[in-house]
């Protein structure tokens, strides 16, 4: 009891310093880092550069390259159907099979339907259960007169450390305005200015204000409407039916997939002319022990199955740790505090109440700076042993007028108020949280992977964002590439016959495992994180 009291006193003391110094910090502009300073900061503190967290991929298309140990294990894992006898005669036939029911999958489904092909969606939980639904900050589209797609491109390229696939990125930014129009057409309610134009906000690493949003519920709004539109089109959706393996014709073309019905554990073989994988990210792998902002189902299911079937990955060694994940209360650990709050003036301050970084640097730089403060003893430790720095949100009201936080960030306000924390009065503790996989399955501009007939859209794909995604580019990505993958997969399906269903790629992968001396340590995809208490 005494120790707990001492701990709390220390936190209170630090918080009081933050409150006391607020007025003196209010109007100070913190300088941006030079490219060189940023390079040093990121290389020294960002988890992507922690050598001991990485290992070599010993088999498959990316053999000899590196990624984090958790993903190595996933890629080298054993198929869950290795010891099952599953009928490969198709229970269902469809032009385009879409695996994953988040924003990218739903957009792709609408696009396939529009192209006139038959479509079946399968998803692990319910339609709409995804990271999309949680996106708060917005969607980057270069609309304002002082902005251009080129400007958007340059910002994203710099943010991605110049390692973005330029063709993919060009298509992303150039398609922005037309997909924004499409979203308006299907009924997405973005915030407006009084003159009727779409309201635009600044985001980290971006030289212009170009975030479209719906309060801090942008992803919820997007997903709600996409889901409603999918239901309006009467597209068939198999819920609680994750994919466990892809099927090929044995000659390098993807021809279908095996789904698992979670209600009765029965397998369903689907034959398709083309397959779109939109299985999302991997936060629930808790890479390097980080908490995550991700959905319960974010276990990178698409990566191991696509990889085993022969699809190459790209930038599979880089991840986004969002700088401001909640640290306290414990029940909120890992939950995102949207970057948009920093873009309207919230400051990051250490335990001494001092600022230490320009809050609008790119996410990798801000995250690195927060980690540095904590490693060097200027963080605050909670009673459950987590560390963090302060995000001083009351400043937002001070700078923009009372009530701004409650009005613009109702979701954040509601989440904290559930734990009796008033974000307009008190700063909150934050620390980087595992947020996004920057890389993924390599695609071309039609969304097709290096495995013919397998298209990928959304977070499961890689290349667009280089080594660090800018805020607001993922919502754009899922819509732009969801549509493109849907269109291209439909077109291909119209020129293709159904081909045979085999698991020959799996047999070959197992052979490769053996000859490389790889002993699978887990079954993959894992489908769900294992949080169950074993005691």
């Amino acid at each position: 009891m005494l120790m707990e009291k001492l701990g709390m006193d220390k936190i209170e003391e630090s918080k009081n310093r933050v409150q006391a110094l607020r007025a003196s910090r209010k109007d100070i502009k913190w300088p941006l880092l030079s490219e060189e300073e940023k390079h040093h900061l990121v290389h020294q503190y960002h988890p992507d550069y922690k050598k001991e967290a990485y290992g070599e991929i010993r088999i498959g298309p990316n053999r000899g390259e590196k990624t984090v140990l958790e993903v190595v294990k996933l890629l080298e894992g054993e198929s869950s159907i290795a010891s099952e006898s599953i009928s490969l005669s198709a229970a269902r036939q469809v032009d385009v099979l879409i695996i994953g029911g988040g924003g990218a999958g739903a957009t792709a489904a609408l696009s396939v339907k529009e192209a006139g092909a038959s479509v079946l969606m399968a998803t692990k939980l319910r339609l709409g259960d995804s990271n999309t639904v949680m996106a708060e900050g917005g969607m980057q589209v270069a609309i304002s007169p002082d902005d251009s797609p080129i400007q958007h491109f340059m910002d994203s390229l710099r943010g991605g450390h110049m390692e973005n696939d330029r063709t993919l990125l060009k298509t992303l930014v150039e398609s922005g305005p037309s997909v924004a129009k499409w979203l308006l057409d299907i009924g997405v309610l973005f915030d407006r200015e009084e003159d009727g134009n779409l309201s635009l906000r600044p985001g980290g690493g971006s030289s212009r204000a170009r975030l479209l949003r719906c309060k801090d519920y942008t992803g919820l709004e997007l997903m709600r409407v996409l889901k409603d539109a999918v239901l309006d089109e009467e597209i068939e959706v198999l819920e609680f039916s994750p994919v466990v393996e892809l099927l090929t014709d044995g000659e390098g073309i993807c021809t279908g997939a095996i789904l698992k019905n979670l209600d009765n554990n029965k397998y369903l073989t689907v034959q398709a002319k083309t397959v779109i994988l939109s299985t999302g990210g991997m936060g629930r792998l808790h890479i390097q022990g980080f908490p995550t902002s991700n959905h319960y189902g974010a276990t990178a299911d698409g990566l191991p199955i696509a990889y085993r079937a022969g699809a190459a990955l790209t930038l599979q060694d880089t991840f986004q740790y969002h700088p401001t994940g909640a640290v306290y209360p414990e029940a909120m650990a890992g939950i995102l505090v949207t970057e948009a709050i920093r873009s309207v003036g919230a400051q990051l301050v250490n335990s001494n109440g001092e600022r230490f970084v320009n809050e609008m640097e790119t996410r990798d730089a801000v995250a690195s700076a927060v980690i540095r403060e904590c490693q060097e003893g200027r963080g605050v430790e909670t009673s459950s042993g987590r560390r963090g720095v302060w995000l001083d949100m009351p400043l937002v009201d001070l700078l923009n007028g009372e009530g701004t936080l409650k009005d613009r960030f109702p979701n954040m306000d509601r989440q904290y108020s559930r734990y009796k924390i008033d974000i307009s009065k008190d700063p909150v503790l934050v620390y980087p949280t595992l947020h996004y996989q920057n890389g993924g399955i390599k695609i071309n501009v039609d969304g097709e992977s290096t495995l013919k007939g397998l298209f990928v859209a959304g977070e499961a794909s890689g290349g667009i964002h280089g080594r660090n995604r800018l805020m607001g580019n993922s919502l754009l990505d899922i819509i732009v590439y969801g549509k493109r993958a849907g269109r291209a997969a439909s077109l291909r399906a119209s020129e293709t016959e159904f081909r045979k269903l085999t698991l020959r790629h799996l047999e070959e992968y197992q052979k490769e495992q053996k000859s490389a001396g790889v002993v699978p340590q887990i079954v993959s995809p894992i489908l769900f994180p294992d949080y169950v208490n074993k005691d």
Partner: protein
Amino acid sequence: MGKTPSPRGGMMSRSITIEFDGAPHYVPEGITVIQAMWHLGHPMIRGIGCLNGVCGACTITMRSPSQGESRTALACQTMVEDSMSFTFLPPDASKKAITPLSAEVPDEKKLLHFYPETKRCVACQACTTICPQGIDVMGGVRAAINGEISAVAERFTSCVMCGLCSMVCDARIRPHRVGILARRLSVAAHPGSTEQLYVRIDEINTGRYKEEWERVMSS
């Protein structure tokens, strides 16, 4: 591969008693109801989703000493309390009307055309009382009856589509579905134009950036 997110450190994790499935259980203090389920050995598949309070999958009804009456909540956003009891609620089973949005000017009467039962509201407040997001649901329903489409849209901004409002409605009204339709229709009804957007689309289509792109892409 997984990492148990249950709280570390002894000081905070005093054990408390909760009631689930008709039996008392001991769980550490300071965790959410979802985390308590994991603690009790339930690998969750249904009744779980984003874990961030926005997907509407984990609705529960609960009773606790600090809140006398029973109330609904989202399990991922609710801390366990000593002597609380809870039950998971079934998923939304309400039928969605097929509501194609046409390019013509939206008509607020469309709300009632697709969801005619909305008119039967007897103002009992059950929907508002049960909403885990604290939305004035009944106010939204009344606004729909009055054809105030923007007012309906505004009220349902934070709706997570859990469907509890429709579950408790004696008149079989589907407020959350009326809410999202109002939102979608109101986009087309929004006064003012998005002129900047159309200008930009035109610029891209007519090749305004072509030369700049060539320069950028070849550098």
